[in-house]
């Protein structure tokens, strides 16, 4: 016999390291974010269908099954956002002269700060 040895293809690679599993969870949360966008688009379509159609849709969204779905989607969306905010300082470093802005501060400047600001504006706009 002679030649190199090639390891077999590892189909379950994502189970091999905790970091791989965290990556898969981060990626899978995008389905919930995308799914909730569909719910939002349906809500807009129902709004265009008139007051009765909208009220019927909103009442349906308040059912126990939908409430559970809202909670799962919220948790997934928050996890999705938090993991990406944590990654932003790696992808978009900010330098002040020779010094790189520390990652936690960069995450606040580029992630949490704008997020909370936009959220506060929306809450103010809805409750005013």
């Amino acid at each position: 016999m002679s030649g190199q040895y090639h390891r077999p293809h590892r189909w379950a690679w994502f189970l091999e390291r905790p970091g791989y599993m965290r990556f898969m969870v981060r990626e899978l949360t995008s389905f919930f974010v995308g799914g909730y966008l569909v719910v939002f688009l349906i809500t807009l379509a129902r709004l265009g269908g008139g007051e009765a159609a909208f009220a019927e849709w909103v009442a349906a969204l308040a059912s126990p099954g939908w409430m559970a779905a809202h909670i799962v989607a919220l948790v997934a969306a928050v996890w999705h956002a938090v993991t990406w905010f944590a990654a932003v300082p790696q992808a978009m470093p900010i330098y002040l002269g020779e010094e790189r802005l520390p990652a936690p501060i960069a995450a606040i400047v580029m992630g949490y700060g704008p997020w909370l600001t936009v959220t506060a504006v929306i809450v103010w706009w809805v409750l005013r």
Partner: protein
Amino acid sequence: MPAQDTMTLEIFRYHPETDSEPRFQSFEVPYNEDWVVLDAMNWIKDHVDGSLTHRWSCRMGVCGSCGMMVNGEPKLTCAAFLKDYYPFSIKVEPLVNFAVERDLVVSLDGFMEKLQAVKPYIVRDDVNDTSGGEYMQTPAQLAQYKQYSMCINCMLCYAACPVAGHEDEFLGPAALALGHRYNKDSRDQGQSERLDVMLMGEAIWGCTFVGECTEVCPKHVDPAGAIQQAKAGAAQEYFKRFVAPKGAGA
């Protein structure tokens, strides 16, 4: 005199002239608190089995030669202390995502081709013109790439990257980080040539930002961050070429 404590190393063996499949072989080695896995492997080679084949050189985390899988984790064996595993056995394998040449030695041919492709050196149009003196650089300009210049090509990042193991077109963490290091160097003029390579197929876009390359890097290079930054540069270049293709109007 009390008996010397020992530890067991389970070592991946593969001799292509006799083996069709790899096998694991157990070795008892003396336990010394200040020994690293590489010391134990060298002891085996010197005292038990001279045919054990592994790469090493500096023993101080500089040369990048002794990277192996230690209990499934990509590690420099010169920095993996026995005391961190004692009294349990240690499984030593060649780095995953590479073809195995012999025992713990992997083939680096593919990596070397990818590394060369990103031109990991300063590219200048005026390379022979020294009339202007040295190329000056400020500390702030140095800071832009210094972290990425610390790479020792140990290949641990390739062993930790699931994409490198499944996508041949992907240039991989170290090669892309080094390409980015030169793209960020204020003295360099070769970014366009490197982006020619990075923009091809899955060369850079194969990266899905798993981030484990950064986790295992012994020199804190952060290849994952370098690749995401390089992607931003590649995307800008892609649209620039889309709007004004190279050679258009010439």
